[in-house]
């Protein structure tokens, strides 16, 4: 088991290089010029001095061949000397430390909510298979699954947050939900702890719902399938034959066994926790990792993009490893490593 884990972890290193290299080459091929983006003024820069451009190029390693540039990036990544964001010269560590908690909050809320709702839904669909409830639920979930988040988010803003349709007369502008951000625009710092909590919760409602509703369909389908399969197993028949109540059969025996696929999915959710949701973040103006990454790519800010990609890649790989290990933990019949060799 330990050998297996070590081998997997060692394999991550070349994989990580591969990922960052591909990402770097894609950025290079886009042929965008971060220096002119930075100077914002190629015209004036030209009138003034080519030397300024050369200076900036040297600062960003852009004057060197691609392999040297990539080598420097990797070197900085390995020594954790991340440097500063080109856009505003702030340390990358600070930028990420600012965006990461917001993203974590948003995605943790969303994932928790998704699991809390889809597990009972899946159980219901499996137990009452082909009933009217199951069919209606299936249709509703697939409709939800098919609605694009950017549209739903925009509709939320127009109908729930604008104050023109759904009205909450007790608020100053009759709007029920805030339009933008994850906390009040002004005066947040002066609030008491409970006021802050309430304010953030109020701001999080629409983004979290937008981020979550699509996951219901996927998760509850997995749950339903797992449950159906378990219910056909011999030990369930045994349990029923023992005279256990249907309630205990389902929640005591079947549920636990059918959780396997769902639990392993958690491992795959890990990268989503930190990579952020670009669409939801941009619609609701929440400055999480998604927007930071998007801005970095636009520049393109090579060190920041590579940092975020590497960070996410490591989490994806760890997530995969975790879900493989979870299989073994949840189901003792799977002995990771031994079987595969």
């Amino acid at each position, binding site marked *: 088991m330990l050998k297996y884990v070590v081998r997997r972890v060692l394999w991550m290193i070349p994989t990580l290089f591969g990922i960052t290299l591909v990402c770097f080459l894609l950025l290079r091929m886009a042929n965008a*010029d971060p220096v002119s983006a930075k100077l914002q003024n190629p015209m*004036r820069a030209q009138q003034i001095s080519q030397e300024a451009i050369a200076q900036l190029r040297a600062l960003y390693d852009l004057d060197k061949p691609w392999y040297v540039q990539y080598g420097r990036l990797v070197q900085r990544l390995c020594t954790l000397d991340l440097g500063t964001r080109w856009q505003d*010269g702030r340390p990358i560590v600070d930028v990420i430390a600012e965006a990461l908690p917001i993203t974590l909050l948003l995605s943790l809320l969303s994932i928790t909510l998704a699991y809390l709702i889809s597990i009972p839904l899946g159980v219901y669909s499996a137990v009452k298979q082909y009933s009217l409830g199951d069919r209606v639920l299936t249709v509703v979930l697939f409709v939800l699954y098919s609605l694009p988040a950017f549209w739903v988010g925009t509709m939320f803003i127009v109908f729930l947050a604008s104050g023109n349709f759904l009205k909450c007369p007790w608020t100053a502008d009759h709007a029920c939900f805030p*339009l933008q951000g994850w906390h009040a625009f002004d005066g947040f710092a002066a609030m008491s702890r409970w006021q802050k909590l309430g304010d953030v919760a109020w701001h999080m409602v629409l983004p979290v719902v937008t981020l979550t509703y699509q996951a219901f369909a996927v998760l509850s389908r997995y749950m339903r399938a797992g449950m159906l399969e378990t219910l056909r197993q011999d030990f369930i028949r045994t349990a029923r034959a023992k005279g256990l109540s249907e309630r205990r059969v389902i929640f005591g025996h079947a549920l636990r066994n059918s959780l396997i696929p769902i639990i392993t999915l958690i491992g795959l959710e890990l990268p989503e926790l930190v990579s952020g949701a670009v669409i939801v973040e941009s619609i609701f103006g929440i*400055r999480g990792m998604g927007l930071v990454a998007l801005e970095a790519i636009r520049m393109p800010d090579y060190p920041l993009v590579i940092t975020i990609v590497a960070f996410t890649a490591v989490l994806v790989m760890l997530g995969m490893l975790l879900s493989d290990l979870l299989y073994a933990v949840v189901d003792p019949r799977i002995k990771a490593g031994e079987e595969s060799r």
Partner: protein
Amino acid sequence: MRNCSRVCLLVLCAVGSACTHGKKKDDKPAVAAPRVVATPPAKVEDSKDPWLSGTLPASEMQGEPRSGGDLTVGLSTDPPSLNTYTDSDLVASWITGHRIYQSLVNIDPLDDPEYRVVPELAERWEISPDNKTYTFHLRKGVQWHDGQPFTSRDVIATMDKIQDPTTKAVHVRAYTQELASYSAPDDYTVVFVWKRPYFLTLDTIADWSIQPAHVIAKLTGHQYNDAATNPLNRAPVGTGPFKFVTWESNAKIVIARNDKYWGKKPYLERVLFRIQQDPTVMLQLAERGEIDLVDHMTTDEWVHLNDSPLRNAWNRSKFFSANYGFIGWNLLRPMFADKRVRRALTMLIDRPGIVDKMLHGMPMPTTCHFYWKSPSCDEGLQPLPYDPIAGAKLLDEAGWKDSDNDGVRDKAGVPFRFVFMLPAGAVEGHLWAAKLKEDFDHVGIEMEIQTVEWSAFTKRLTEHTFDACTLAWGGGPRGDPTQIWHSSSIKGGSNYISYKNPQVDKLLEEARVTFDASARDAMYRKFGAILQDDQPYTFLFVRPELNMLSKKIKGARPSLMWWQFENMWLEPQAK
């Protein structure tokens, strides 16, 4: 939108893109502005309704100013830093210039259209008879926001940082190349000696924000550039009427009244800049009253709001600043070398039609290189009329005839074919370029439209490898056209079309050292007449700056120098 406003900082602005600002005032040597020739086609309903015409009602200036209150301003971009010496950024200069930081002198922002130079940190100054030595006597008793006293050491420290080749102040350093020396004989006197006299010297000095020596003097050039070692980059400390409070990246910047300010204190308690990239959300925030001033709207947004209920709670301001769009003909190309051809092309372009039918009648026609209200523009200079028949005749005269009957004019075996280069993202530009192509087609000129990414676009401009292009210049109240029109600027300057006219060269050189404004204006008017005759550019139009202000804002007046929060106050509104 973000990219667009970035492009505008270039001073050069893609015509027809949503950009409306181009009034960065530290571009004097580079740029200037135009003058209207024909009065804009004022529509009847426009002139009566201030909401449609974008005039702030006179009542907004009246009333007893009240102290207190917060004003929230919507901005579309977050500045890279608040240090305009390390990052040349329009938004940063709006927020800090003469507001947080101050300069030795200021350009009176409400003195439209003269924009005279007035004292700021210097109480008075003397200029030597040869116009080379400027002696400034500094104001006494001025305090930095952190309590330290302001002295000539601060001026010297700032100049040191501008001149230090290791700082990122390259964009400012260019203007100091003409500076022979600077010194501080005592705590309250500063002397600048210039190599040559230049009429824009004071305007240049008005752009130099003075930074505190006790913060920057000990920093090396690299430390000065880096936000981690230079606190001023994220949290400026100045002497101005407002002091910096906080900056949340990409969300908000807050400044507050400086209660220890040496001059007239502002009425507003705080000004909050809310950064919102999405223009739709910006309008929703405005509707909810979360923003009091929407800055730089696009034409489409403006027209869209014509019948909006927002008019009950908001005023709109339409202001023609110092900018103009144009089509530049590369004079190195054989067909554009002939002045008759260029005049013909101008006459073939239906400029009034484009303004009315495609641009909602918003822009204003122009023929002038300078700020349209400035006396450097000749009001009597009308744009060449739209006259396709006369245009075609001129082409015949110039020898461009369809001799081989293939539907395209030619001369000496060269067909009249050219590529019209447009920067990517210039939406409105594409709209009218298509019409241009069609119109040219009717008279036997083949024009191909080519969209080019901005960085490639500028590269081709400086290398003179294009046929025709469209662009805009923006500038301040005064300008020196040398950078754009002098033949010495073909190489390394902004004379992309390679315009060379000895008469113009001589006029521009003389104007640089002419300190009598009316004599200089006369020269510039003569220069304008030559341009009109030569038509190296087809001058298009001045775009308006479109803003929306809550009715509770009083004392607001549009200016080339952006909004003057120092003079604004808030009227409590019954809701």
